[in-house]
């Protein structure tokens, strides 16, 4: 299918999802009982709770999907994404440290929690990247194992922080680790993620030619004129910004960065000039849909969306692992 048409369809999909999603959801009993008289409450629920939450879902989905796509190209590994490489747990650790220390500050309008999460994401990426540098010919499987190991380390550090925290802090960290959008209740939350996500995405969009070339191999990219190391550093910075911002606001929401780019590659092909906008749009629509499902599947309780995406992502991951061609790690 024509790639431009596909991008238009994906844009419509996002518009449709974000337009419908705020109308869906459980209502408090008082509203159901009082019917029309509850118009003011209804409008408050709609505008002050659901709309910001849907906007945040779209933003987080887009940022996570683009991050996953970037990791897959840079590490040339179809299973790389913020969650599997331990970058999301790095960001979580940063945010948990912030919560544990009981800090409350903001810098350039961005809350301190986002900066701490950003620092955690940078730390995790440096660890993964450093490990790929230690031994040349670091294979795809080893990269993922390194990610698993980093995940373990950061998770145990988070548990340690929880153990050391008081009951309230501990509960805050636990709930937030499940990865959900239920703590997003204000437009302010959306506005704190927006600038970092936009900057990160713009950087990736600026480097789509380079992403294509790096995906074909580092030597080949360098011999075609790409400043490989500099490009990688800039891309890692962009991804850290995006993952840090999203994780600080919503907790680690896994596998969006795995599923969205793969589905988009099937829809529009591997050329990052088209794949990046497609992944961005699809990721947004996907997380909006997942979150809508998560908060309606067992009313009046609202399931954290991270549980749902991991439930979908786990089997997807296994399918990718088994569907690989026997000769090599083909994407």
């Amino acid at each position: 299918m024509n790639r431009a048409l596909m991008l238009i369809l994906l844009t419509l999909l996002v518009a449709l999802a974000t337009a419908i999603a705020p109308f869906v959801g459980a209502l408090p009993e008082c509203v159901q009982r009082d019917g029309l008289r509850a118009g003011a409450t209804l409008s408050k629920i709609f505008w002050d709770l659901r709309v910001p939450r849907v906007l945040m879902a779209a933003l987080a989905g887009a940022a996570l999907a683009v991050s996953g796509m970037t990791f897959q190209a840079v590490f040339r590994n179809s299973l790389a994404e913020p969650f599997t490489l331990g970058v999301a747990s790095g960001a979580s650790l940063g945010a948990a440290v912030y919560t544990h220390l009981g800090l409350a500050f903001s810098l350039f309008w961005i809350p301190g929690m986002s900066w701490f999460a950003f620092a955690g994401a940078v730390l995790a990426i440096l660890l993964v990247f450093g490990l790929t540098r230690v031994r040349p010919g670091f294979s795809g499987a080893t990269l993922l194992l390194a990610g698993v190991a980093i995940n373990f380390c950061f998770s145990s550090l988070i548990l340690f922080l929880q153990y050391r925290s008081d009951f309230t802090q501990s509960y805050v960290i636990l709930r937030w680790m499940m990865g959900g959008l239920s703590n997003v209740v204000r437009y302010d939350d959306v506005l704190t993620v927006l600038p970092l996500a936009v900057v990160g995405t713009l950087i990736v969009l600026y480097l789509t030619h380079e992403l294509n070339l790096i995906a074909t191999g580092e030597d080949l990219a360098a011999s075609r004129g790409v400043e490989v190391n500099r490009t990688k550093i800039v891309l890692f910075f962009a991804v850290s910004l995006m993952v840090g911002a999203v994780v600080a606001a919503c907790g680690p929401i896994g596998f969006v960065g795995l599923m969205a780019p793969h589905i988009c590659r099937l829809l529009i092909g591997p050329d990052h000039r088209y794949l990046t906008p497609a992944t961005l749009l699809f990721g947004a629509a996907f997380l909006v849909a997942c979150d809508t499902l998560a908060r309606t599947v067992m009313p009046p309780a609202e399931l954290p969306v991270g549980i749902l995406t991991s439930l979908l992502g786990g089997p997807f991951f296994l399918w990718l692992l088994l569907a690989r061609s026997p000769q090599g790690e083909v994407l």
Partner: protein
Amino acid sequence: MIDRSAENAVFEINRFSLCLGKKEILRDVSFAVYRGEYLSIVGPNGAGKTTLLRCFDRLLLGGMGWIRLFGRPLEEYRRKELARRVAYVPQADARLFPFTVEQFVVMGRYPYLTPFSSIDRGGRQAVREALDVTGTRPFAERRLDTLSGGERQKVYIAAALAQQADVLLLDEPTTFLDYRHQAEIRDLLARVKERSGTTIVSVTHDLNQAALDSDRLVALCDGSVAFCGTPGEIMRPDVLQRIYRTPFLLVDHPRAKLPVIVPRTPETQP
């Protein structure tokens, strides 16, 4: 026929040594490659052939001594500028992104692009020629990961040709290919050299092919230059034995005026 004066040099490498970790891979290497020349780098396994080729495209940094490209120190080139001068065809890699052949060849135009820009008319023309000259047009729409080894090698060369560089560096272009594909790749390289006067530097293990195809050969042994000269000079049992430390049996090629190596019969117990 090839002008081997200093001002016609493409690459000049002088007293170049390189260590990776604690191991010295290249030791005091000096020679030059001239415009329009086909130069093969041969030598035993682990002699540093691929390392040297990678140094020529600045894929490996550091080292003592210097390398000059068209009279300018290699490290002074910006990466894109270097890519317009030198194209590199690496050894086959099993990890392939599912790009189509055409998408991959178009990427050879990267050194001529600016961000957000697309390939221009001149670029399209270069891609078309690269596809035609390599005979890869019939499968231009196929995905890289569905190609055979021989087809893939042609596509890699096509992408390097689309780059329109003055020098083509090839790392074992015919290794692992069957006889037909070996012949096709060799014909292709001869055509490229003939048509556009491209300078070719190729690392290979096949001495017969190297001797028949190249103007000159450089043999590396334990990181240093053990031989530098014409095919006629290297195809002698004593010279070959000194490089490879094993006896050789040579016969005259029926067409070319050049001895070629024939495999020895296995030694049997008396």
